[in-house]
């Protein structure tokens, strides 16, 4: 493929085209709907895999960048790119959507169902590749609409309540975020103008009042106003909106902290962090299976990704300031999610609460601000997408077969369906964090990383790992063990189609558990760069544990030796 091909733009446009194609399928050919939808999301998945293959793992910066003006008056541009931080979330999104589409079928109105799913995919991919604050906001917000209609239209009994709650909660966060983003853009512009003027004055002084022609032109250029810009890289790298963290009064907050707060509330709701998590169990439980898979697998990651990119990268100083609060909330989420999950009677709700706990780990790792913690957080975001996605698919299959998700009504399923039980065990073990499976690698890295900076938080979080084993194993025991009663005796075994759908997820679980190095290698440079950025722009010093340099391919090393 042509290296200048705007692959990321295509990544967003392909699902949109797919949605239109689905709508164009004639009413008389309903059987085509799923094929068309899977075809387009499969094409998007192929593009993400291509991005993964073409990604240069030594480059810490943004790759495949496209930057085009969109609303020129306000400095808004279609600025997209991926780096090691977003790469795997993009791939995860690309792969999870076709799986979710194949993994379950809607009971009615297939056409809008697939159209909404494809639009959702476009929005999610858009979030992960945006390098413009405005573009990011737009994508972050547009994701709500398809998900709202998916939950409300194809969900279970209490779907309308869950859909409304989901929309209103998340929109509240976005509302604050919009103000934060706009305020940041203006402050950045004003600060840049001030800096330019100061520089101009300095130049005039240095030239003793009679600058040369070139200097005069430069001074005039500096004195001119600066256009508004929403560009993430521009705002983050210039770092004009500074924090007064060294101020004597800790409550004397500068704008940067308020802006960070406005952004982080939006992300915290999306993640969801402890006190604002209440939309999640409802939304996850009431959503149709594909909706739950995407909600858990992709949508929650919008929050953790936002924390990294638009929290730590954009406002490092304020992020360091608020890190203790966020880490604490994350740890509360770990313990609280686990305890509440233990109490659940509904299998799907149990998995939903386990998400609260897992996402708590990710936040802990992220705001530990160490290489290991952050890498672990990112890896765990992918892991959680894979394993919880698979869990929701399996729970969906149980609900489909039995018409209920009540744990007390299920019993002894491993007798009639041993293979199904085996797959469930594997996925569950990954979720618990059994060594050799992907969950372990992520949680271990998070623990190592956060132990360096947040020792006691990590100690408490470690208890969460044990609790995870408790609630999942107990649920497994109740559902799969024992002698099946009359209702459960004829539980059908996993069939070929279901097996094929779940196979890639199982493969990913094992692969990431045994050999996570290719993933970590690609994340590494970007994560290190981000931590350097935080250190440069705040008084935070990340504890240095020597990170092994990525092994260079043999010929490259030879080349260097030759030089």
């Amino acid at each position: 493929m042509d290296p200048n091909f705007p692959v990321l733009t295509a990544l967003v446009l392909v699902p949109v085209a797919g949605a239109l194609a689905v709508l164009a399928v004639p009413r008389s050919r309903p059987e085509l709907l799923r094929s068309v939808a899977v075809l387009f999301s499969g094409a998007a998945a192929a593009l993400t895999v291509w991005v993964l293959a073409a990604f240069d793992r030594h480059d810490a910066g943004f790759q495949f960048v496209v930057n085009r003006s969109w609303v020129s008056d306000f400095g808004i541009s279609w600025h997209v790119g991926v780096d090691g931080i977003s790469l795997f979330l993009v791939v995860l999104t690309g792969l999870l959507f076709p799986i979710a589409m194949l993994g379950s079928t809607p009971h009615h109105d297939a056409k809008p169902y697939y159209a909404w799913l494809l639009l959702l995919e476009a929005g999610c991919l858009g979030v992960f590749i945006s390098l413009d604050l405005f573009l990011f906001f737009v994508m972050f917000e547009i994701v709500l609409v398809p998900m709202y209609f998916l939950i409300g239209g194809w969900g279970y009994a209490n779907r309308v309540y869950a859909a409304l709650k989901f929309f209103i909660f998340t929109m509240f966060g976005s509302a604050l975020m919009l103000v934060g983003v706009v305020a940041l853009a203006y402050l950045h512009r004003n600060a840049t103008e001030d800096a330019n003027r100061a520089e101009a004055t300095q130049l005039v002084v240095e030239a003793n009042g009679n600058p040369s022609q070139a200097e005069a032109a430069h001074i005039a250029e500096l004195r001119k106003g600066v256009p508004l810009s929403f560009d993430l890289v521009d705002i983050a790298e210039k770092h004009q909106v500074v924090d007064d963290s060294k101020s004597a009064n800790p409550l004397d907050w500068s704008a940067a902290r308020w802006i960070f707060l406005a952004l982080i509330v939006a992300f915290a709701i999306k993640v969801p962090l402890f006190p604002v998590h209440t939309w999640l169990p409802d939304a996850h439980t009431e959503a149709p299976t594909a909706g739950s898979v995407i909600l858990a697998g992709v949508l929650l990651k919008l929050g953790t990704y936002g924390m990294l990119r638009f929290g730590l990268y954009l406002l490092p100083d304020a992020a360091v300031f608020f890190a203790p609060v966020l880490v604490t909330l994350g740890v509360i989420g770990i313990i609280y999610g686990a305890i509440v999950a233990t109490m659940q009677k509904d299998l799907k709700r149990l998995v939903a609460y386990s998400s609260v706990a897992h996402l708590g780990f990710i936040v802990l790792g992220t705001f530990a601000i160490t290489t290991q913690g952050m890498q672990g957080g990112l890896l765990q975001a992918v892991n959680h997408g894979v394993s919880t996605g698979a869990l929701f698919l399996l729970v969906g299959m149980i609900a489909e077969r039995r018409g209920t998700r009540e744990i007390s009504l299920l019993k002894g399923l491993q007798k009639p369906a041993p293979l199904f039980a085996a797959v469930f065990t594997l996925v569950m073990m990954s979720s618990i964090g059994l060594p050799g499976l992907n969950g372990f690698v992520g949680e271990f890295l998070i623990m190592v990383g956060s132990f360096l900076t947040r020792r006691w938080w990590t100690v408490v979080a470690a208890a969460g790992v044990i609790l995870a084993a408790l609630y999942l194993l107990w649920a497994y025991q109740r559902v799969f063990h024992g002698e099946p009663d009359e209702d459960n005796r004829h539980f059908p075994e996993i069939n070929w189609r279901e097996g094929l759908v779940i196979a890639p997820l199982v493969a990913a679980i094992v692969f990431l558990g045994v050999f996570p190095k290719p993933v970590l290698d690609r994340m590494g440079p970007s994560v290190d760069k981000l931590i350097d950025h935080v250190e440069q722009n705040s008084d935070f010093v990340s504890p240095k544990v020597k990170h092994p340099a990525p092994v260079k391919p043999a010929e490259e090393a030879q080349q260097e030796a030759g030089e």
Partner: protein
Amino acid sequence: MIAVLGSLGQPLPVDPTPISTPDVDWVAVAPLLVLVAGALVLLLVSSFVQRKATAPYTAVTCLAAAGAIAAVVPLWRRVQDNGRGPFSTMAGAVGVDGFSLFLIVVIAVAVIMAALLADGYLRREGLEGVEPYALLLLSASGGVVMAQANDLIVLFLGLEILSLAVYVLAAMHRRRLTSQEAGMKYFVLGAFSSAFLLYGIALIYGGTGTTNMVKIVQFFGGAALEKDGLILAGLALMLVGLGFKVAAVPFHFWTPDVYQGSPSPMVAWMASGVKVAGFAGLIRVFVVAFGAYRVDWQPLVYGVAVLTLVVGAVLAVVQTDVKRMMAYSSINHAGFVLVGVEAATRQGVQAALFYLATYTFLIAGTFGVITLVGRKGDGHHRLDDYRGLSRSRPAVAFALTVFLLAQAGVPFTSGFFAKFYVINAAVDAGSVWLAVIAMVSTVISAFIYLRITVSLYMSEPEDAEAGAAAGRRAGPRVPVPAAAGVVLAVCLIVTIVVGVWPGSVAEVARDAVPVLAAPR
């Protein structure tokens, strides 16, 4: 006494100098003349066509409005031309600047939308006649006068022309008692608020010695006033009068009742055209003429904006009647425009103009659907009446969903950029907390928009079983007349296209600068 009687016998002394009549630039008032002429033509046509017709009236009304837009084009070129620029005529009483021309176009578009919606509505309700159309054009001409007013008295004249016609339009549905009630309520309260405005103008005249806004600006350009009590009181009273027209809280009490009772197409006009005219006056008087007093009036408008945003959003949530919901939501939207006004910057005016322009399409589309779903008798406005519309009329349901999401400020709709520009203006002007309140109020009001979509998509139609038994698609059976269909299609396209490429509209709004040009 005798001397006076004696003088009666004498011939009156003839003043040799003729009364100097002001210059009239006919081209400058062409949009106004086209609208008034359209109303007269309508009345003339009505004596030739048979009583029961609506199509010729609709056609003439739309032509007149389109003519007004056409008349704006050369004026816009002239105003935007660097050599010539904005100007005023009729002794400085009527101004022609980008601002007024922009609003004239918005008003004309609102007229076209309302006329097209009214076409099917009047036939359905058996109310065919020329009167609604003539009144619509006359009230639009009042709006145009307000948009062009460079003199407070002219502003008042425009307001009265506009309002009197709208009072009658509100009471137009002869067989619905609520319509009569709405007209009566609107009239009494409207007259009351006009009195406030007039009293405010009188106080301003007392304080400055003139009602001409150009001279008012010149007056403030001189020395600072030591005692400006009269002016402050005048401003406050004018805020009441104009706030009533745009339905700002706490002058909003008429809105829900009037919106609920009035014929639905006319509500579309009230929520778009009338509001636009009200904001034209508000911006011209406060931002432009009394810009020097912004430190004094900004806190006032700030407070009104906060109340308008919050009350509009919160009270909308507890309604069960869709028209009342939209009435309160329109109050919330007025709050957004007020946020732009409060900024009192060029950017704020641009944001307000963009908001008004895009909102006109949104509200025309929304009330278009409400008109259709109201069905014969204009009485089906409960939330339950929308249940299952997505099954019987998927296209109409989709259009309404887009309009509602746009009003909630969802990206890729015009409503999102409207809110974005307002927030930009507010943040740039330093009113960050006002921006926060505005956005939070959007979230609250989003709840009602979502509730309507729940009825559309996620509820079983009331006649689901009966429909299944009869072998037809369930859901309300809503006939869609061609004219209304056109309105919905146009509004839908504009909402989405502007939502993706806002640039052109935003640039025109940016160029629509309000200027008070002195007469030559």
